[in-house]
């Protein structure tokens, strides 16, 4: 069969498929469509077009004909096999099941990341507490003074920098800074996990140094009552994002029976679920930190009570949520 005859024979089917796809892909407005597109018709025409493409290739038909069938089958393939899950149901499944399960599945990385965050924090905290001058090896003098002012007893709103006008501004700062740090902590894990380790240790050390310094200055009560509540969300989230990053790095270092590339794709698919959860936790953390932790009028005892509840809820959520869900 010559290419021209082949084309003449099947032209009508291809045109029909093209028109249907134009409607489905919204290239032409639905009103102008001759008929509403039916799925089974598109599928049938798609399979026919696949046959024609295979024939056209086997017979080395002209390039323009193969290109047209290529494009036609590619478009139809996208329409038929696309899987896009967005919306409330997918979101709820992540919250109610996938996120805590992903965390438990990677418990080893989570504990490792938590240790990488906590150990430097304790070490520097104790060191700075006994030798306050050491704070200057972590931050400069201006920053140290600023922290002192932020958590002073007389501060009208705890944890607010002098430049920031309102609690809302602090909310914006917490959102962009903290979630940005979490994303970096995750993504830089692809460098054999080194990036995640750096961010975990650095942030742990910074937190520990500031805590030790403020405790030594006698500002412990304001600082700890400030940190306790949102820390349940924020510290856990940073540790989890680090764990997701460590998983990425480990997938390259020890791919097991997969190729390194397959291993990376696999690890990324699983760990990105953790990043979803981390993002949500940090939004909660930012709101709590900006509007609750900072409230100077709330007595410390109330704050510690709420904090205890938050820690229990967060840890129980990660440990138990979605265990028995199908």
């Amino acid at each position, binding site marked *: 069969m010559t290419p021209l005859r082949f084309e003449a024979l099947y032209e009508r089917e291809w045109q029909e498929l093209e028109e249907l796809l134009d409607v489905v892909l919204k290239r032409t407005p639905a009103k102008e469509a001759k008929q509403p597109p039916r799925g089974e018709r598109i599928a049938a025409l798609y399979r026919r077009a696949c046959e024609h493409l295979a024939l056209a290739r086997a017979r080395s038909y002209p390039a323009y004909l193969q290109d047209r069938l*290529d494009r036609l089958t590619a478009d139809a393939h996208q329409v038929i096999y696309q899987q896009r899950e967005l919306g409330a149901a997918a979101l709820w499944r992540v919250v109610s099941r996938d996120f805590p399960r992903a965390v438990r599945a990677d418990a080893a990385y989570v504990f490792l990341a938590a240790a990488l965050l906590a150990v430097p924090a304790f070490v520097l905290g104790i060191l700075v507490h006994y030798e306050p001058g050491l704070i200057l090896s972590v931050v400069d003098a201006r920053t140290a003074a600023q922290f002192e002012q932020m958590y002073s007893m007389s501060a009208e709103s705890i944890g607010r920098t002098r430049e920031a006008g309102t609690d809302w501004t602090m909310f914006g700062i917490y959102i962009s800074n903290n979630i940005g740090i979490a994303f970096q902590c995750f993504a830089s894990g692809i460098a054999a996990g080194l990036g995640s380790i750096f961010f975990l240790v650095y942030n742990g050390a910074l937190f520990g140094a500031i805590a030790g310094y403020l405790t030594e200055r006698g500002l412990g009560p304001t600082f700890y009552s400030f940190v306790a509540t949102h820390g349940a969300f924020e510290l856990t989230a940073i540790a989890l994002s680090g764990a997701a990053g460590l998983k990425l790095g480990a997938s390259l270092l020890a791919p097991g029976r997969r190729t390194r590339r397959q291993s990376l794709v696999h*690890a990324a698919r699983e760990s990105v679920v953790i990043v979803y959860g981390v993002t949500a936790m940090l939004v909660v953390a930012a709101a709590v930190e900006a509007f609750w932790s900072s409230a100077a009028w709330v007595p410390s005892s109330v704050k510690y009570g709420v904090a205890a509840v938050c820690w229990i809820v967060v840890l129980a959520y990660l440990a138990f949520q979605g265990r028995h869900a199908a």
Partner: protein
Amino acid sequence: MARHVLDTAVAAETPEGILLELRPAGLAARFYAFLLDWLIRLVIAYAAGLASLFMGGFGAAFWLVFYFLLEWFYPVVFELGRSGATPGKSIVGIKVVMDNGLPVTPAASFTRNLLRVADFLPFMFGAAVVSMLLRRDSKRLGDLAAATIVVHQPQRPPKLKLDGVAPVTPAVPLRPSDQAAIVALAARAPTLTAERLDELAALASAVSGDAGRAGPNVTRRVLGVAQWAMGKRA
């Protein structure tokens, strides 16, 4: 086949056993797209900054959150749209798809854009540039982890125009791949200058029995062979 040596095209197999051809977008195309997106983001950020000035105490928070979302989720939102491409990519004519040629999934788009941070290292997207230059499919780290690929959007090929050309019976037996090459030349003819077309046709002049000669007449006869291969007979 020679074209596979020259082409960077990669194949994705469908369940129907058809190989879909994906044409990976190279560093240059993606750099231009990035530049355009960067400019667009700059304009949006500037507009948001102006708007935030009129929001009083709420303005700074609005700007911070808006800028954060713009920085991290601008590509995600557009890649999940119908075109699968950010405005910059659309203008350049490239888009993001999964390795198997399907539209990019939300998880994959999120992953590849989170990993822009890693691609940025050590500075100015060094890792991304090295990865894209080393790989045939021009993937950056984010594409590798998310199993996505940035491809040129397929264009509608022009229909073969050989109306005034009389069919010429080949002087030598032609294999199917030879016929395909001649017809492909004819398909490209409208995009070439007359001189270049003559040059290329001269390479194939043996098929019309004009070996060693060149010129518009030889070109016409070679195109005539293409007409013959298409099924037209005198």
